[in-house]
């Protein structure tokens, strides 16, 4: 078993998952009516639901952001993330999430997600209101989170690539401090829907 664990650490986490042929789940979220990509592994469930740029714009303008700031977020490929520890019992196993470890590959090199702190620095520099910044902070998925049995959390994540971009997202998490990983392939940012005038 020790040898196996040593061998596992030698490989990237997403390569391990590819080796075992674990499947991602893709479908249409019944509530949002938009595509989702999900990964389930025992106690873990991660679901990422597309958000239309206009949805995100409306949400943040409604929370007091300037239209320019709301547009910046809306065009940064935002997903609604839901992460759940489906294990029964309040103690174990503990699911750990650290979004700073997640990576995406949209064909131009591997990069990190846009963090809350990066956004917040931008809002401070742009003079966005304190109330808007509070709403923003709480509406994004926490950068780090521990979920015990029965817990779940939800929130937006922003990938920092243009609307319509297709990418692979490398997820990582821990179960009782043991690292795990997976790749969601073919994740697609919602396109910017521009209504063209109909030609008679």
């Amino acid at each position, binding site marked *: *078993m020790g040898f*196996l664990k040593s061998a596992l650490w030698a490989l990237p986490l997403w390569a391990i998952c590819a*080796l075992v042929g674990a499947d991602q789940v893709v479908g249409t979220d019944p509530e949002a009516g938009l595509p989702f990509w999900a990964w389930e*592994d025992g*106690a873990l469930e991660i679901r990422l639901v597309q958000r239309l740029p206009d949805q995100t714009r409306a949400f943040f303008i409604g929370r007091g952001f300037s239209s320019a700031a709301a547009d910046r977020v809306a065009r940064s490929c935002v997903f609604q993330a839901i992460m759940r520890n489906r294990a*029964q019992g*309040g103690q174990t196993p503990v699911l750990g999430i650290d979004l700073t470890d997640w990576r995406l590959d949209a064909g131009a090199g591997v990069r990190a997600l846009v963090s809350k702190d990066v956004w917040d620095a931008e809002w401070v520099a742009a003079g966005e209101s304190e109330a808007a910044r509070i709403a923003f902070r709480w509406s994004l998925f926490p950068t780090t*989170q521990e979920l015990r*049995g029965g*817990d779940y959390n939800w929130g937006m994540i922003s990938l920092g690539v243009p609307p319509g971009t297709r990418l692979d997202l490398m997820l990582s998490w821990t179960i009782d401090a043991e690292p795990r990983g997976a790749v969601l392939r073919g994740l697609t940012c919602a396109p910017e829907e521009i209504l063209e005038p109909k030609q008679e």
Partner: protein
Amino acid sequence: MNVPLRLLGALAIVAVGTLIVTGAPVVAKDSQTLAPVPGRPPAPDFDLKDPDGKAVRLADYRGRPLIVNFWATWCPPCREEMPSMQRAHAAVSKEGIGLIAINVGEDADTVAQFLSQVPVDFPLPLDESSAVVTSWPVRGLPTTFVLDPEGRLAYVATGGREWDDRVLLDLVRGLKQ
């Protein structure tokens, strides 16, 4: 020829090993649980006002179990669990168990508008500056704590629950002195 075969064998071992290491625990999809808070630290104090300007102080609840929820009107799971919190409040308030839901970052008008759609009769103090929520160990909304009569954090639930579930309420009742 040998090298690819060995590589394939190694990969197979790794794959089997991964399956062993990632062995799925027993799960139940809709399990209702509360996680005990290690060491039961004291809950950070607060003194807030509800949308009508009435004071809501943590100290006033000392001596009985208290459910403290953090929420916002724009948070779908927060809205979803509110009716069950109202039912839980109706079930346990006569037993001396308190329930309050602290709104994060919104003003009185916004919360009053929400109350017109989802009427509840437990206190909804406003944490407009988010000073209180940031002093508590809250990572996301909704998060709910259960305090023991000494004002210590006994249980925590991250994400929504059906709060009128007897399993959860019995855990809260178990904190009574």
